[in-house]
């Protein structure tokens, strides 16, 4: 079963995603696809916090800063995967040089295709994304490219995933399918 979870920040997406992945793994192999490339001490602290949260859950970590196919090469496809998040992955891919903020839109399109192929090829996957589409602002060019690219990934994943969930303050709206028991 494949599940897409999106919603606002701090809405309980990651906690639900961990819980669902464990449920889907049902005691079997589970992978955590780690997408953050740490840039500073704040990022490293966040990664340590996430690692501590997952301790004892039995996840094997697959480092995937940019190349999803490479990260998955040695993984068992019949396992349960937790990918958190598409947002971080796209950020790494779309802005290869964080200083210049130049966008690599070809890489972003490849990243979208790889995510869809990933959702289609593995037995169980829970994928976390972010909803950042509903504020009263007009953004500059590269920010709009980012939002549009992420939304394209969300829509493509929503079309292929079995279940689509929106999180809001720890509450969950199921937009497609049914939660695994």
């Amino acid at each position, binding site marked *: 079963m494949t599940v897409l979870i*999106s919603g606002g920040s701090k809405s309980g997406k990651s906690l639900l995603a961990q819980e669902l992945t464990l449920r889907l793994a049902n005691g079997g192999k589970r992978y955590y696809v780690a997408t953050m490339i740490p840039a500073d001490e704040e990022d490293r602290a966040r990664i340590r916090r996430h690692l501590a949260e997952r301790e004892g859950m039995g996840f094997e970590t697959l480092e995937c800063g940019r190349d999803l196919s490479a990260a998955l090469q040695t993984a068992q496809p019949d396992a349960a995967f937790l990918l958190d998040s598409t947002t971080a992955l796209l950020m790494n891919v779309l802005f290869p040089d964080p200083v210049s903020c130049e966008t690599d839109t070809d890489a972003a399109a490849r990243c979208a295709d790889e995510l869809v192929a990933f959702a289609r090829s593995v037995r169980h996957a829970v994928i976390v994304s972010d909803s950042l589409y*509903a504020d009263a*602002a007009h953004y500059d060019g590269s920010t709009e490219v980012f939002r549009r690219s992420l*939304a394209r990934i969300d*829509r493509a994943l929503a079309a292929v995933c079995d279940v689509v969930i929106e999180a809001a303050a720890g509450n969950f709206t199921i937009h497609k399918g049914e939660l695994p028991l």
Partner: protein
Amino acid sequence: MVFIIGGAYQGKLTYAKAAFDLAPEDIFTCNGTQIDFGKRCVRSIEEFTLACVQAGADAVAYFAAHREQWEDSILICRDIFCGVVPLGAENRAWRQETGRLCRYLSAEAGRVVRIFCGLEQRLK
């Protein structure tokens, strides 16, 4: 009237085209204080409200005055309501007026649909 809301890039127009068999010539994209209600579908209503705020016009009054022209229309507006309070006064007024119009249109609509990741959520 069918009222469709949703965040940016969620697939609101794609949904409307498929659900109501719209051709490009059926769609009016707002970019000022005037709307061509001769088109079956009016989209980017948030750009109409922004133009109204800038021109000092009343967006709800405009819609109310043309009520019989959009009774059977498909109206699309972007959800701009879930961010932090905008720093600029114009953006605050924009959000305020768009929210007021959305509540009016929701009340008038026979059907209200929210689009999330390309998926339809029936609100009314």
